[in-house]
């Protein structure tokens, strides 16, 4: 790369990282700096808004003034060295050229032609726009780009989280452990496995309390109701069972699925449960009468994950036809279809406090905003494995478990992966038996329970001695340059 370009990139990065903390040393002429500050602020805020005005209104306004010569000469006066090092931001009207960056979006307005010059030319009235930039603008400077991006996007800095370490390994199942659920009082948790049993374990000590038998094939989904003393389980044998926890036996079965049921969730407010599986439909059951209230059809392949929440859209499903659908439960119809994923969506997780959720597939883990399903961000750097499970913490830690045993921990707000580890198999297992099928945080968010393919259950916790200096985690760098989605 051209050394001038390299210096530019480095200076951009440092500006972005430290610009907030230090600013420019504008301590020379107070009124001038104030004027500059205000005018630049106004421009930043409102010049972009100007482009979204209807053209007939915008025609009435005076054309946007580019940097006036006055501003730039003062800038030159103030600190010519600084001026050379860190070029000024472009006027917000110049946009959307394939070669301009936007994510950090502080870039010299000149095109590549000026990069060859020794010093950047600052006088805007003589600013030579490249042909591409000229084409991308109307005469008065408003943009013709189809999708306008913000020019000064500050990236969210990730919060530091302690590294997660293995605390306990619980063996006892005789088949792959496929599902897990922690009870609302955080006393015990239940796991369902390929040996067709549901085992209930004490959370504090990890000892086995109870084994429930009744399914004839793998138990794929579990849920403990916070409002009734019931445990719901679903399996590959098309059965959905309601267990009474006071008597430890099955009291209800919900009949109607045509094929294996892979996922189950309870509605927080209504007495309703939603199950979904290989027949590509999600069924909404009334708990008491065992009737299928709605059959939510629309997916074309197995639904691998279903989640319920109290506000609209009340049901979210992720399926192996790469679609995520948000459903209107009262009408029984799809509200939105999200087609951003390229591979099967195997995992969904809702954030406990924010109105957002994340969906995981082999290509990407994406974060979305309710209620319209707006795409928020990708979790970077990507977890390069088939993501079988996602779980979120109230501290903003998201865990993703892969089919090859790899585990990744992400910061929710910024989407940054701060830890990546690989689970080790229990001694006696093959290395190929490394895989995570299900996971959950307990209700405090301090313990992570993962269910693995080597028939063990692993409990993880945060390293108590970790500090930001000793365990900084994977390094975060703000991104420069346009990204592809």
């Amino acid at each position, binding site marked *: 790369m051209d050394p001038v370009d390299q210096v530019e990139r480095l200076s951009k990065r440092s500006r972005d990282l430290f610009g907030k903390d230090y600013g420019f040393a504008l301590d020379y002429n107070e009124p001038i700096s104030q004027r500059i500050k205000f005018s630049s602020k106004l421009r930043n805020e409102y010049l*972009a*808004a100007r*482009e*979204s005005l*209807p*053209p*007939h209104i915008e025609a009435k306004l005076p054309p946007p003034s580019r940097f006036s010569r006055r501003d730039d000469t003062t800038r030159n006066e103030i600190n010519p060295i600084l001026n050379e090092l860190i070029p000024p931001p472009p006027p917000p009207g110049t946009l959307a050229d394939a070669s301009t960056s*936007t*994510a950090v979006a502080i870039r010299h307005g000149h095109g590549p032609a000026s990069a060859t010059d020794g010093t950047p030319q600052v006088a805007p009235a003589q600013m030579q726009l490249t042909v591409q930039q000229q084409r991308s603008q109307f005469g008065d400077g408003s943009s013709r780009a*189809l*999708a*306008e*991006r*913000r020019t000064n*996007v500050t990236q*969210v800095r990730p919060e530091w989280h302690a590294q997660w370490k293995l605390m306990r390994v619980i063996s006892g199942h005789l088949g792959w452990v496929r599902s897990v659920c922690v009870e609302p009082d955080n006393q015990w948790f239940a796991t369902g496995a390929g040996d067709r049993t549901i085992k209930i374990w004490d959370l504090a000590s990890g000892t086995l309390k109870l084994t429930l038998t009744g399914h004839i094939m793998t138990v794929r989904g579990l849920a403990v109701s916070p409002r009734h003393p019931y445990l719901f389980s679903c399996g590959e044998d098309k059965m959905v069972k309601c267990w009474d926890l006071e008597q430890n036996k099955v009291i209800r079965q919900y009949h109607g699925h045509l094929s294996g049921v892979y996922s189950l969730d309870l509605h927080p*407010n*209504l007495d*309703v449960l939603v199950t979904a599986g290989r027949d590509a439909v999600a069924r909404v059951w*009334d708990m008491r*009468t065992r*009737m299928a*209230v*709605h059959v939510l059809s629309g997916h074309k392949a197995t639904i691998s994950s279903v989640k319920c929440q*109290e*506000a*609209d859209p*009340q049901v979210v499903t992720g399926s192996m036809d790469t*679609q995520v659908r948000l459903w*209107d*439960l*009262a*009408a029984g*119809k*799809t*509200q*939105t*279809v*999200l*087609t*951003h*994923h*390229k591979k099967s969506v195997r995992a969904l997780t809702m954030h406990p*406090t*924010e*109105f*957002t959720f994340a969906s995981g597939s082999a290509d990407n883990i994406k974060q979305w*905003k309710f209620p*319209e*399903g*707006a*795409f*928020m*961000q*990708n979790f970077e750097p990507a977890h390069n494995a088939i993501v079988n499970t996602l779980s979120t913490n109230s501290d903003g830690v998201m865990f993703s478990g892969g089919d090859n045993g790899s585990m990744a921990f992400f910061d929710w707000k910024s989407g940054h992966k701060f830890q990546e580890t690989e689970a080790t198999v229990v001694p006696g297992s093959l290395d190929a038996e490394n895989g995570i099928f299900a996971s959950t945080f307990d209700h405090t968010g301090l313990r992570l329970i993962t269910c693995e393919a080597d028939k063990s259950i692993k409990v993880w916790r945060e390293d108590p001695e970790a500090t930001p200096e000793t365990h900084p985690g994977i390094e975060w760098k703000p991104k420069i340059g346009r990204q*592809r*989605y």
Partner: protein
Amino acid sequence: MATTYNEIGAVITVSDAQKLNNIPPYGQRTGWRPKTLDDFGDGGAFPEINMKQYPLDMGRTKQGPSNALAIQVDSQGKIKYDAIARQGHAAGRIVHTSFSDLIPLRQRANIGEINLARPSEEEVAETTAKTKAAFEMIVSGKSKAANAKSITNSKAQEATYIRYTPSNMMGERGDGQHRQRIIKMVDLPEDPMEPPKFRHTKVPRGPPSPPAPLLRSPPRKLTAKDAEDFNIPPSVSKWKNPKGYTIALDKRLAADGRGLEEVKINDNFAKLSEALYAADRHAREEVKQRALLQQKIADQEKEAKEEHLRMLARKVREEREVTARNTSRRSASPRPVRSRSVSRGRSRSRSLSYDSRYGSRSPYDRDSYRARSYERRSYRSNSYSRSRSRTPQSRTGRSRTPRSRTPSPSRYDSRSRSRSYSYSRSPSRSISRSPSRTPRSRSRSYSR
């Protein structure tokens, strides 16, 4: 009607309608075209005017009902190109159609303040109530259908009465009392055993709702290497061929997986074979060494024995000479020993050995036996046995030379002995054997 004349003098009749609408009369229509329906008046098309005419709007080919969407424009005046993607959906449906739906939310231009708070309690309660009500209706409808007690609807079968006040009774005024009528409406009784009256025809399903726009890049093209990696040859059985196809050998073996697997042999096999080889070599060396050692010992013993014998022979010779001198002085007498030994010929040394055997209980018992047996063997092995073994006669029977065959279960003789040797025992020997300790028994005690 006024008669008018045209240029060539023909009479022109003008109708009322023509007059009213200013339709030019026949002959004067050269530049004129009927533009509206009224221009046809009450007549038909004008044949002399060369254009398509549809008087009374008759004869047009009708455009059928088309599915084309009309172009719609949104509030800002931009054309709604995503109307196609929204076709058929309810108004509340959210369809992501633009490129900005692909940009992360915080980087979109017009987004303003992003509010990530969960909806409030009131909203949630409202949603819950609405959903619950909807569910109640559905569930009650279904449960009624499930729990229906009788097939007849009793409410519909009861009579309803209607008070009818007729108006405008066709001129007939009627008396005041009969101005109103009461009508009793009863459902026609349904025959429960009647078969269904109508056929339910199946209507093919309509088109599905339009597919959602795909907001992802198209799948990457396969490289040749990828295609090769995932290439699975068709499975052709090595055992079954029910239809008798002739398939090339390379296709028969393609799914074999020979080239794919690396056959790993455990190292322990090599270690085992090496250990065996070493042990074998070691054993053979040991055996050879032992044999050499024994041979050396035997040689030494033989030497010693020969020396001893020579000494004995010398002694005997001297004694003989002495006695011969003595007897020659006295008289000439036969020597039985010598004659015996002479008559025995080949077995001379053996006879000696026998005598020495019986005569002496010498400290060389073992050695003497060994020497004897070795002698026997040496005689046989060096000169006689070789010759004997080579000649075919020697291999045959035990009757051949009973003397020569002396079964001796000594260690180093076992190999050189043939089976035929083991049986023979010369009866002569048994006579000469001493009763108490036979050489056989002795040898037996030693050789093991």
